[in-house]
């Protein structure tokens, strides 16, 4: 029996997120946050060690990363704000989100881009599998593209709240530039 033949399949299965929702693409989030913008220009940020210390001082949190993905929003040649992208680990999940910042570094809007369970265990769970069976509603409409809502105790958003606070501090550096 050729064990190797099965390896790619197994790897794919374990990497498949058990639960994933894609809410918005980066472009969709940009347009929702800055509907007046005529252009978004990538202005990625590499924090120097003194900037990292400043972020830590302003947010009271570890700066965590040197490199940040940032887009400047422009109407014509005028800068009207920034969109900063980040990911955080929640309790069992990875949350990708975007923070819209005004030109004074105040927070304009926070949008979740994608949410996925970081563990693969649920794939073996019968309730999880069942949601794919008969996913068409009586009206013939597929709800949630086959992905159910989750009911249960509150997911803590502590890491997300911290992430937004860190980005607000990074915003202070962006507007100083």
């Amino acid at each position, binding site marked *: 029996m050729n064990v190797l033949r099965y390896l790619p399949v197994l790897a794919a299965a374990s990497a498949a997120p058990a639960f994933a929702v894609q809410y918005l693409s980066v472009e969709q989030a940009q347009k929702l946050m800055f509907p007046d913008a005529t252009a978004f220009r990538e202005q990625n940020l590499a924090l120097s060690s003194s900037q990292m210390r400043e972020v830590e001082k302003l947010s009271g949190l570890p700066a965590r990363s040197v490199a940040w993905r940032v887009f400047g929003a422009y109407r014509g040649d005028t800068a009207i704000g920034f969109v900063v992208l980040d990911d955080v680990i929640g309790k069992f999940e990875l949350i990708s989100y975007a923070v819209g910042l005004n030109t004074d570094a105040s927070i304009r809007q926070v949008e979740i881009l994608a949410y996925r369970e970081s563990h693969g265990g649920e794939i073996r769970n019968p309730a999880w599998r069942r949601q794919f069976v008969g996913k068409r509603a009586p009206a013939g409409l597929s*709800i949630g593209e086959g992905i159910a*809502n989750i009911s249960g105790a509150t997911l*803590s958003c502590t890491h997300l709240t911290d992430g937004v606070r860190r980005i607000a501090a990074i915003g202070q550096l962006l507007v100083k530039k």
Partner: protein
Amino acid sequence: MRRRAQPWLGTLVEVTLAQGLADADADAAIATAFERVALVHRLMSFHETGSDVSRFNRAQAGEVLAVHPLTWQVLKLASEIAEASERAFNVACAPNLVAWRLLPAPAVGGPTFVPGVAVYSCEEDGQVRKLAPAWIDLGGIAKGFAVDCAVEALQAAGALAGCVNAGGDLRAFGPLAFPVLVRAPHDPRRFSESLQLRDRAMATSAGYFSRGSVAGRTVSALVDGRDGAAIVDTVSATVSATRCAVADALTKVVLATRDPGHPALAAFGADVMLRCHSPQSHNDA
């Protein structure tokens, strides 16, 4: 179909618009729904110092406070459910949650939880009278209420079907059934049940994400409002009702009293959809 999520009320709030509006109108309706949620957050957050809840917590006993009409509605509903449940549901348990470090202390040297007493009364015209030294936390019921507000905003904008989910407090409206997975109480990464929700609200409560240990005692964000004790059973309760605020509050009644037929359910047109025990819940109890 459009699905968006933003962080509010200490959790992820997800808005799904499935039928009735397209493109720019759908985006505008969802934006309005999130604005309503944000308003409830600002008014009823325990953490935000400017909220009505924080103003109440800082007020002296005997003081009369003018609160936002939405806060007044939630306080009124909370007192009705407290009364119907003989205070198994009780928003005045916050001092215990502060002592267990599940909530930040609003002030040094706060009040202690006193069982069996009303700590406020709702007067006319959005006035609330603080009756005793107390800290209140509207955490769960306000989350359910925010879901109700968001659904009403979507409907007012012309949406025909959709669903709003705030960390497990859900409400679906319109003719479509929305699939819902309920977390297993003994392993919240897994799901114990899948349900269909149509034109109704539901809420699931369990202690699994908040359970911890303080000074050798097991604590939880779920409290039996009759005596202020933490509910630490490995159990979850799922209640359905027309309003999500009602569904959320009644999950606490079911968990505290362990009575899935509690008369408060019928009084508010609610019913228990699900009670999940873990295999080891007998040992915990």
